[in-house]
């Protein structure tokens, strides 16, 4: 699972090792990546909103 999170984080950042990319495509299941990606996108929104609330104080 931690490997999936790391891959999604790398995708958010926009940079990934070619070797890791191949591994993900061989072993991983698409649904898992999509679910984790959606959850982490929500997390990002919450994080940005929190920063905005703190900044607005």
């Amino acid at each position: 699972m931690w490997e999936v999170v790391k891959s999604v984080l790398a995708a958010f950042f926009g940079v990934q090792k070619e070797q890791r990319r191949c591994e993900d495509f061989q072993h991983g299941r698409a649904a898992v990546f999509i679910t984790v990606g959606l959850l982490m996108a929500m997390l990002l929104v919450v994080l940005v909103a929190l920063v905005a609330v703190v900044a607005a104080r």
Partner: protein
Amino acid sequence: MRTLLVWLAGGLSLAGSIQVAMANGWNMPVGVTELSGNIHSLHMTIFWICVAIGVVVFGVMFYSLFRYRHAKGAKAANFHENIVVEVVWTAIPLLILIGMAVPATATLKQMYDASEADLDILVTGQQWRWRYDYLGEDVAFTSNLGTPRAQIRGEEAFGENYLLEVDEPLVVPVNRKVRFLFTSDDVIHSWWVPDLAVKQDSVPGFINENWVRIDEPGVYRGQCAELCGKDHAFMPIVVHAMEEEAFDTWLADRRAAASQEAQGIDREWAMDELMERGEQVYTAVCVSCHQEDGSGNPPAFPALAGNQALLDDRDRHIDTVVDGVSGAAMPAFRSTLNPVEIAAVITYERNAWGNDSGDSVQPSEIAERLSD
């Protein structure tokens, strides 16, 4: 050595041209409010960050082009993927953007805080003039282009403030927080005064807000910044910032004048009086479409001189000025002009430029018409 000289010359000419641009007023002005100063320093901070990025990026690019040129036998490296470089060139812009966002957010917060104002002014854009209502003060007036039409037609030399002068400037006090509420009667306009760092759209059906606290008394000029039709260039803004005491006196005088004019509604006005006042109103408000000689600009703006249909039907003339013409360019003046002004301008139109109806319209009649 030669390379160093080239770099030095390049750097000096860049810095020099930036200095020239600023000295010639091509840069954003520092302005006359604390906030406009903050906006200016934010602008300069971001500008210098961009200059630094540009120098580094183009420096590396031109250096590489020159140092590893084909003529010197350079061979292109052929590789794919370099995690370290990719992470660095993604992380650095991210950090730069966050670094820019911090001061930008601080300034934006200040810009949007229009709370606890000492004075509220409703600014209404109209084709093609600005109307100012001092909310709760019983003072309201319309600010029209002050540049003589002869200058616009090129028959006279341009004045010092050509197209940047008005008949009645907006008057505000220094050292007090003034909140502006912006809206429009017709199309989208934009109220822009660079020295106050205010550029706010005025949109029909919406209220936008902005605020100023001016530090120095003075006259500050601006223009409509949203293309709004034929006379977009002819609706300038002049803000007169006064010392607080002088402003209070001005406001009291304006209030007294308004109530005096309101009293004038009930009395009978002589023809000469109506014609004189009517000409003032016509010159300020009607002239941009219907022209000085009443010839208009058909078909959009009909002629008033020699318009027999208008002269024959006095009631229709009153209706047209009070309520405007639906679906045409003629606006309703019921809220823009007071009954004295409406009566005077209709009387003027019915008896100027060879029109000889001989009849007059009394302010009391208009007041009654408006209360219907």
